[in-house]
């Protein structure tokens, strides 16, 4: 009975959390038209774009090169047995555009920026800055969250393209080392193997991941109560929850795309 109770409580808490996220998402969406026409919001969004995007390029590129190389080596060692090493190129191209690029980028952004969102907002809560905004008749969602939202929705798909490119180039390095296939040849093969629909579904997923990361990061920040140690806890929780939700959303949307593609 006790176990059932705790499972029930867990489910209710989970649903309440998702409900809270949805409400916050909705208020963000409602505040967006107001925010989009204000110069100050775009300035803040540009700052966020630099932090999430520009500063994130090196790590996304390096991690994608490594992952691309690992993917090529692992599949290569199996495919070699069948003399089908050239299919490594298909695996890397399809794997990155559909899945590895968007997911890897989202996970890196969760760690880098999701944590930054929650600690920034959490600190603002602790130092009464959020209250100060409210007492000035300003909407914290519009001023603090919406610029992050705009920035993430623009920059995370861009980072995903960086990740796709880096991963595919790592595949080129592997193919050159193992079979001496040159870059122009490799690229010609890759462009044939890539389906533009894969690229777009990947980018669509990255947009959804961007919404999740900003929402969870901001919500964990806004929910901070107490002192500095609560900010630390919220940061951890923002990273853990956004990574989990990104992967859950990935399963969900990949399943949808899979079903749609079948017909």
């Amino acid at each position, binding site marked *: 009975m006790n176990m059932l109770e705790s499972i029930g409580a867990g489910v209710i808490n989970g649903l309440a959390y998702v409900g809270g996220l949805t409400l916050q998402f909705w208020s963000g969406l409602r505040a967006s038209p107001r925010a989009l026409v204000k110069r*100050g919001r775009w300035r803040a969004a540009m700052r966020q774009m630099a932090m999430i995007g520009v500063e994130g390029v090196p790590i996304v590129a390096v991690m994608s090169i490594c992952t691309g190389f690992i993917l090529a080596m692992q599949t290569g060692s199996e495919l070699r047995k069948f003399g089908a090493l050239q299919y490594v190129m298909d695996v890397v191209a399809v794997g990155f555009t559909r899945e590895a690029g968007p997911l890897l980028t989202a996970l890196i952004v969760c760690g880098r920026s999701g944590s930054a969102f929650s600690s920034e907002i959490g600190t*603002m809560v602790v130092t*009464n*800055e959020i209250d*100060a905004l409210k*007492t*000035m*008749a*300003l909407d914290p969602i519009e001023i603090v969250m919406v610029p992050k939202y705009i920035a993430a929705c623009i920059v995370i798909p861009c980072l995903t393209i960086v990740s796709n490119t880096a991963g595919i180039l790592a595949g080129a390095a592997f193919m050159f080392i193992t079979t001496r296939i040159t870059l122009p040849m490799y690229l010609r093969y890759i462009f044939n193997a890539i389906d533009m629909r894969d690229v777009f579904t990947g980018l669509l997923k990255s947009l959804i991941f961007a919404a999740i990361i900003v929402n969870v990061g901001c919500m964990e920040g806004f929910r901070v109560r107490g002192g500095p140690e609560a900010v630390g806890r919220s940061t951890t929780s923002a990273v853990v929850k956004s990574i989990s939700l990104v992967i859950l959303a990935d399963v969900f949307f990949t399943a949808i795309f899979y079903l749609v593609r079948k017909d």
Partner: protein
Amino acid sequence: MADAMISVDGLTVEYGSNRVLDNVSLEIERGEIMVLLGGSGSGKTTLMRHIIGLEQPTSGTVKIRGVDINHCSRKDLRAIRCTMGVAFQEAALFNSMSVRENVGLPLHELTTLSDSIIEIMTYMKLAAVGLGEAIDRMPQELSGGMKKRAAVARATALDPEILLFDEPSAGLDPIVAAGLDDLILFLKHAFHMTIVVVSHELASAFKIADRIAMLYRGSLIAVENKEAFKASTHPRIRQFLDRIADPITESAAARDHLSQLAGLAGAS
């Protein structure tokens, strides 16, 4: 009272089983300085947060110029807040913005003034609190007193009718604190603002207050003018005025616990 700027009626606030404010009723008139006095944990900051409408009370109402702040439309709340300025205890300046941007923020967001006019107004507000030279500094580069003055400049940016201060002199040396008292009096006389000051500093309260409201453990025990307050015979007010410490009472349970710890259970 027709002229009440802020009227609090039967305000009760409970956090779980802990009653923080107990049936507090208070009217603050236009143009007066009301000091909310009380010891630590007496509920004075909680009362202020409810007057600003940052929290929902368990029961009771807070009305600003006759409008219930907890049950009004979003538009009304916005209109009320545009006429209120709040200087928080820790100043609550936006750390990522310079002093200039902090003070200019409400002007940029809530008015349609041009940038050059906002620039002039920002400088005037900062000059009025003696911070004209610190306009381009970041909040981290300011001393405690400067931060509080910058917060006052930001709170007065939109020329509010009501100004609220949470512990303006806490953590400041007597000279800087006296400067803030003078600033509060200046704002009252120059702009005829209604000012609410949360404080536990007697000297400051007697200097600036028109009336003093004393809170004790969540209840309002007196609302008097300065002279009547000084002459009060209420034991809690006398204790506060005469700086007499609470006797450290030892409960029977605490005594039992101590003797158990000492291995003296049963022996007394």
